[in-house]
């Protein structure tokens, strides 16, 4: 536990240094996106990594937060209210959609998440109260009360706080009854059920928390970009980006999503900027090639292989790492 907290402290310190020391807007934007995707990847990791139900619809929970923010602000209410409102909406959506679908196995579950997300997307696009396909532009007002800032520093501080809170929550998850039950269900659902673990209720709990985390990221995103529409928040493409971030680093590991976000944001987005924008598809070529190589050579993800390697060197059987690293 201690090394994880030290690593987290070092990341927060480096992030704070960047927030107040760096003036380059493009670099700061990358740092913000990196933290946002690390949070979203971790949120996905709760249900898809630890619990093993691979979701391709996670963006709808991100959208709950973003739309909560847009609705609050455009109706003259405080964006701070969007944090509980978005979280409640996301948890409710997770429970309503998870109750029937979480019992589905393998690809049938994954495609059900695509179906649910596509239905949500279509409904949002036809609801005038939700801004239809055009979405919302948030009115500009700066200050902590309006949760809007003229420069990027405070946004990075907020993103760092959210990232740190989610990492600490995940450390707690790994040590909690919920965390052990999820890994047991993932490793062998029949055996877990046989010792009395109720699959549906524990997975629903994980799904709801996972949705709440994604919703918090959504609020922060909306306050940062001040623009919310379906393609930038709830579309299938965002869901897939989240899932890929979750898996590239290492599925079901504490640091996997952060490493996945680093690969996605720095290697794919950052390099593409250097090569002349993402319009030419270079970012996709680089990112796609990285995913292919990792899937073929390091199928447990970057962090997953490091964990495996450490365990092999120690030669000891660490039950926690065994469940997170390799069991399928």
């Amino acid at each position, binding site marked *: 536990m201690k090394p994880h907290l030290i690593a987290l402290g070092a990341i927060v310190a480096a992030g704070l240094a960047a927030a107040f020391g760096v003036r380059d807007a493009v670099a700061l934007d990358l740092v913000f996106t990196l933290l946002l995707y690390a949070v979203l990847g971790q949120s996905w990791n709760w249900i898809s990594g630890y619990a093993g139900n*691979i979701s391709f619809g996670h963006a709808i929970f991100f959208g709950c937060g973003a739309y909560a923010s847009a609705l609050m602000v455009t109706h003259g209410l405080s964006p701070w209210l969007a944090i509980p409102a978005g979280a409640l909406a996301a948890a409710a959506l997770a429970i309503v959609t998870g109750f*029937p*679908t979480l*019992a*589905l*196995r*393998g*690809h*049938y579950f*994954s*495609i*059900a998440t*695509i*179906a*649910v997300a*596509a*239905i949500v997307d*279509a*409904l949002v*696009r*036809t609801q005038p109260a939700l801004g239809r396909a055009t979405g919302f532009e948030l009115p500009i007002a700066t200050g902590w009360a309006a949760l809007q800032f003229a420069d990027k520093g405070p946004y990075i501080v907020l993103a760092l706080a959210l990232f740190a809170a989610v990492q600490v929550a995940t450390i707690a998850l790994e040590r909690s009854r919920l965390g052990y039950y999820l890994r047991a269900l993932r490793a062998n659902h029949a055996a877990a059920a046989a010792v009395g673990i109720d699959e549906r209720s524990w997975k629903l709990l994980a799904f709801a928390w996972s949705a709440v985390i994604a919703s918090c990221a959504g609020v922060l995103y909306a306050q940062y970009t001040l623009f919310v529409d379906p393609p930038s928040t709830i579309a*299938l493409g965002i869901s*897939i980006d989240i*899932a*890929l971030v979750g*898996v*590239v680093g290492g*599925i079901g590991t504490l640091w996997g999503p952060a490493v996945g976000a680093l690969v996605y944001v720095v290697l794919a987005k950052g390099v593409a900027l250097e090569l002349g924008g993402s*319009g*030419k*598809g*270079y*970012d*996709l*070529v*680089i*990112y*796609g*090639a*990285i*995913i*292919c190589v*990792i*899937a*073929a*050579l390091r*199928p*447990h993800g970057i962090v997953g292989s490091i964990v495996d390697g450490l365990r092999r060197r120690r030669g000891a059987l660490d039950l926690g790492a065994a469940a997170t690293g*390799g069991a*399928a």
Partner: protein
Amino acid sequence: MEALTTFAQLLVGGVLTGLVFALVAVGLTLVYGVMDVVNFAHGEFLMLAMYATLGLALLGLGPLLGLPLVVIAMFLFGIVVYRVFVRRLLSGPPEATVFGTFGLLVLMQGLAQAIFSSDFLSAPNPPFSGTLRFAGLAVSQASVVEGCGALILTALLFAFVEYTETGRAMRAVAEDRIAATLMGIDVQRINGLAFGIGAACVGAAGALLMLSYPVYPTAGVPFALTAFVVVALGGFGSISGALVGALLVGLLEVFGGFYLSPELKLVPVYLAYLIVVLLRPQGLLGRR
């Protein structure tokens, strides 16, 4: 009378749309049935086949003349992709195949965008561009050709899997990989062949779709997305299930688009999927 004609028009439209979906879905379900892999890059294989068809059409080999060449090229492409890439994914955890094929999707889209740009490209002067009219109904000739192609392809694939020695070996591998190995079946060879045939099927689909659809780097995405639902709805691995699922999805989409609104046309499709898998978790014609 008018309402009846509208209904008949929608019915015909729905069946033809469904057959186009079946065309794309059969290759996907074959690969899944044999090796439990959902090839998420299936739509990008389709996109590649469409660009290949377009290239041949620009050289003077129109979509239908180019079809056999595209099918052979895609068959070889599928075998190479299996040998070099998918085979490695199979030795990892189950999620490795999901994300490996997703990586392939991202890579192929990126390459297409880098090489061909994002422009929509159509085959020059495609044949069958007219409209067929009978009994007050109108259907495009291209969609009839595509529908016939889907039926022929599905029938060929079904006959191959049911009645040939190799098809029997594929079913054996699908049923029990280890038992099949013990019976002297080379599982790697059968897997590679199945992946190649799956790619060849989507090659034929791509060539036929160039009759009426433009190609662009993400051209395969909407077709593949529907194909995943079609295949899961029918039951992963079932060829006849894919055909039934595709017809159901086609009809739901066309009727939904007309009676609800075009923006909501996919809602009944996805709702039907959710209802079917909640009642029958293995899909309509799938085995447990």
